[in-house]
């Protein structure tokens, strides 16, 4: 744990601070990330690149959950330096993004769209979404997965993602 802490703390804090302005809050989220990673440390690879990627994977999830809890949306970006440039989109960008997202969501089936809305935009848990949509929890999980995959494909086809 100490090794994880000293080696990756700064990198993780830097990552989380992209999304969380408040430093204390960001530090809490880094702690949570490290704690979650530590629970599975036995299985963890010794390859530093893979440790880093694993930690960032968890950190992303931690940030997503924190933001959803605040009824806000997480700004999740790939761990690439290029994204730093895209921090303050102007209103035209936002408008275009709105169209692109509407278009991508429009390509989903109504069932998949309903799951994205409930779980992501409305911040519901899988269990709550299952009750709201009157389907088993397993169905919400699989629809969430296929919806994200379909969205990825839609964004690719629209030239937004490669």
């Amino acid at each position, binding site marked *: 744990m100490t090794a994880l802490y000293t080696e990756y703390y700064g990198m993780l804090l830097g990552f989380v601070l992209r999304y969380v302005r408040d430093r204390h809050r960001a530090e809490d989220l880094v702690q949570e990330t490290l704690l979650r990673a530590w629970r599975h440390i036995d299985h963890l690879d010794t390859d530093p690149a893979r440790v880093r990627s694993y930690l960032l994977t968890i950190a992303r999830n931690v940030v997503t959950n924190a933001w959803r809890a605040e009824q806000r949306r997480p700004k999740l970006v*790939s761990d690439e330096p290029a994204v730093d440039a895209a921090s303050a989109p102007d209103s035209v960008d936002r408008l275009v993004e709105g169209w692109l997202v509407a278009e991508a969501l429009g390509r989903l089936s109504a069932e998949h769209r309903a799951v994205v809305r409930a779980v992501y935009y409305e911040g519901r848990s899988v269990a709550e979404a299952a009750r709201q949509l009157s389907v088993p929890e397993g169905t919400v999980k699989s629809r969430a*997965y296929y919806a994200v995959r379909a969205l990825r494909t839609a964004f690719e086809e629209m030239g937004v993602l490669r």
Partner: protein
Amino acid sequence: MSHAHDDDLRMLLGGYLLGGLDPADTDRMDAHLSTCADCRVELERLSPVPELLRDGAPIEDVGPPAPGLVEDLLGRMRAERAARAARQRRLTWAAAAAAVLVAAVAFGAGALRPGGGGPGPVAQPSPVVSQPAPEPSGVVARFAGAAGTRVAGVATLSSRTWGVSIALDMSGLEGEAPFVLRVSGPGGATEQACVWGSTPSGNARVTGASSLQLPAVDSVEVADRTGRVLATATL
């Protein structure tokens, strides 16, 4: 350590990305991701999706409208249909009046000729000409309040060279001020004729103006700040 792929776990990637997994599933996924490179790659590949969804959050569909709004819409549709029918009637009357006029002129001319003999002055069919609906001080239209409101009142429309002057006498106004008076004419042309604020009594006497000519006015309506139509009067 087996890396045999577990579809059940892979399904959790969606919830892991969008959020909403319970702590037990989150922990299973954390554990799985520490050993499964395939899933880590897949997660990496899908991770821009939540970001894009956030930046382009769509306008939310907040469900069906309140029952009152449906009534309101139906009321407006009925009013519009009534206005169209009224215009139709006006046209019919105008045609009839024109026919009467033509008949009268023909009759007058025919009656004169035998008596006068020569190219005497043509009789002025003045009594008939002055006939078409003299609009004295103005046209009065009564407002029908939208369903669920107690808005009532009358609009008095007077013809002017520049258009039409509209005097309102309203009661029971409710909703978000400022209120606006809109005048609708042919082909859906609409002009805002005046804007006013709320009064403690809900009564208001205001006068507005529009460039539409009086005969072209189909209806006038009063709406609140949000665009909700409170009352409509068709001419």
